[in-house]
């Protein structure tokens, strides 16, 4: 186990390095930050002065190596827009994003487990078809559309929930619902198929033939085993969740990392984009590792090497 962990952490280094290179090149290809920083009426002279002052006149590889050497020292550069070190700005946003992501995940879990079990045990019933149909719909609805529809319904028409912002827990309901719907749909389908597979296994038939009551079979024998893939899939949803926060946070003006990334991309604030992508990459790799470990803990048949 210790050896496995050590290896997994070592493997992160080349991945993060590669990500740094890709992000750097992509950000540079998309345009020049200086022209966005200065007003339309700035002269070419003003522009040249600022480019030189920011070190953007140097060749690309020189800029990359300067960036990389700073990176190794934990310095992600200074945000042009905020004129502050980039990493603390990104980290400052993490609690808000975590809060939203965890609420969405909780919502998805609470919805998907009973629905998944029900539609697996009542296979091909009206309920099963209804749940399957709804989960396709849930997966298909784009969050930007769903979010705005929820605002129009619950805030504007019914005046039941606040529109946007991050103040009290009621402000969390609509964004968590928006972000969680897609994941709930995905997990419902997953739990259903995982349950169906297990309900067809020999030991379930044995349990039935022994005359055990159905609810005991479903919850004690089948459901617990079907959870193994589900728990790991939950950990693997991190990237979906973070992708979803980009849109959800922007719609509900939720001051998290997703909104920060959108603003930074719009403003060509390279330092922020790089630091944020790095943090996201780290989170995804870390949660994948966590999923891996969880999987091995839950299912001892899997070996560590």
């Amino acid at each position: 186990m210790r050896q496995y962990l050590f290896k997994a952490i070592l493997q992160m280094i080349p991945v993060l390095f590669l990500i740094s290179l890709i992000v750097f090149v992509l950000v540079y290809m998309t345009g020049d930050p200086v022209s966005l920083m200065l007003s339309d009426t700035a002269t070419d002279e003003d522009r040249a002065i600022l480019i030189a002052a920011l070190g953007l006149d140097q060749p690309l590889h020189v800029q990359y190596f300067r960036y990389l050497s700073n990176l190794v020292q934990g310095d992600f550069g200074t945000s042009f827009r905020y004129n502050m070190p980039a990493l603390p700005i990104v980290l400052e946003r993490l609690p808000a994003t975590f809060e939203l992501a965890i609420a969405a995940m909780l919502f998805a879990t609470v919805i998907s487990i009973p629905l998944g079990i029900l539609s697996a045990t009542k296979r091909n019933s009206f309920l099963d078809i209804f749940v399957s149909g709804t989960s396709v719909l849930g997966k298909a609805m784009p969050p930007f559309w769903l979010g705005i529809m929820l605002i129009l319904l619950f805030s504007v028409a019914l005046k039941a929930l606040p529109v946007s912002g991050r103040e009290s827990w009621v402000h969390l309901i609509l964004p968590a619902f928006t972000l969680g719907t897609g994941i709930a749909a995905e997990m419902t389908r997953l739990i259903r198929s995982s349950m169906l597979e297990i309900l067809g296994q020999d030991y379930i038939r044995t349990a039935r033939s022994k005359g055990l009551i159905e609810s005991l079979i479903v919850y004690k024998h089948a459901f617990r085993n079907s959870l193994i893939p589900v728990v790991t899939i939950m950990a693997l949803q991190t990237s979906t969740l973070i992708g979803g926060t980009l849109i959800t946070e922007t719609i509900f003006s939720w001051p998290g990392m997703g909104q920060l990334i959108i603003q930074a991309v719009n403003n060509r604030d390279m330092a922020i984009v790089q630091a944020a992508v790095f943090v996201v990459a780290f989170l995804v790799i870390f949660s994948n590792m966590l999923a891996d470990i969880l999987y091995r803990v839950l299912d001892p048949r899997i070996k560590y090497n």
Partner: protein
Amino acid sequence: MKKRIAGLGLAVILALSSALVGCSSQSSSTPSQPSAPAGSTNPSAENNGEKVLTIASGNDIVSFDIHDHNNTSTEAVHVNMFDYLVRKDAQQKVQPLLATEWETVDDTTWRFKLREGVTFHNGDEFTAEDVKFTLERVATDNKLLEYGNYKQIKEVKIIDPHTIEIITFEPEPVLLNRLSRLGSGILPSKYIKEQGWEEFLKNPVGTGPYKLKEWKRDDRLVLEKNDAYFGEKPKWDKVVFRSIPEDATRVAELLTGGVDIAVNIPPSDLKRVKDNNGTDTKQGPTQRVMQLTLRLTPGTVTENPKVREAIDLAIDKKAIVDNILSGGGVPTRTRVTPGNFGTNLDLYGNTLYDPEKAKQLLAEAGYPNGLELNMSATSGRYLKDKETAELMQAMLAEVGINAKLEFLEWSKFNDRYKAKTFNEIFMIAYGNSMFDGSLAFDRLTTERAKGESDYSNPELDKLLSDAGQNMNAEEREKQYKRAQEIIAEERPHIYLFQMNANYGVSDRISFEPRLDEMLFADEITLK
């Protein structure tokens, strides 16, 4: 065994998540702000008898470094915290603020008498030192984004603690305009020298009517009234600026009473805001003018003045404003719109539209069967830019001009713009934060136009260089009026319309939009 572990694992995850949610939601509600009761959607109501004004804009302020941003909406917040030496009133007339009187000693020296008994929010006294520190910083540090607008200042001389002289390199007729805009808020020199910039950026202090209470980036910025303000007592106890980037959300906040003013209402939502019970819309002109820049480079079709005139006559600017912007603009033939020094009112508010004459001009120019040209425009940079360009393309086609339209995302557009590689026509909008005619012609002198429009007129060059340093206001005004006539006639630029700003406003307050788009809280009142 393994089942138990599985169950345990899930339980731990669930418990952890709920604990985390609990923690973070607790930390999110600050003790200073009592959280709204569940279901309440009206934070701007006068809770505990407090008068709170809530304004929603599309983005948060950039920072509190007043010299290092270029952003009108950031300045619109800053003006409530920092005072200028002189201030423009709602009619854009210069009024005393931190400076009580001023005079020009000679062509390059201005003397200002400073207000006495003014204190910063931290209690420091405002003196000449602060003015010197503030203006010399932005005039000398070329890394600052506002450097280009202040580098004309050579030195700020302290005559006595409440008198200064500003020395400029060249005669500066627009100095007062420079000092009453972005970058001119006076900073506390003692505080910044002692505590450092980092501390100032976290806890900024100015002399203005409102002081910072809290700033949650990309969420909200809360100001509270400064009881020690030297001027009229602040009208609001608290002013909240919320950042809501999504248009639909911003409109929904206004409709539900979550905010009192929402800026940048999309034209398609204006009717909904107007019809809604409890809200109304306000439109006001801005400094932004949409225009076409034409190429006069030898060998292009637009080199011919008759072709340029035909293009101008073929475009019905009023139809664009009425149909695409829902009336949110004013057709104009000059970029120096009212409110700016040197405006030529003969060229404002009217448009030349005569498709028959346009056809005739094309025939005279040797194109009886029409002609082809290329036009570039942005998509998504300005309000309805794509629709505007498409409608223009159709109007040009009516008279026989087949314009090939190319849309570019802003950063790509900007690359071509800087490299000066556009073909016959490109569409762009310019603002004018200086409120002076000089800025409107900055791309039309022979030197600056080279490679872009390739326009050159020695008479205009001379007029502009004379006016740029002319300290006689009356003469200078005449020079700019004449310059506008020349441009309107020769058409290296064809101006289309001045853009309006659209605001949604709650019925409980009165608000009049300003030409400079500043949001002075004390100009906004409860009804």
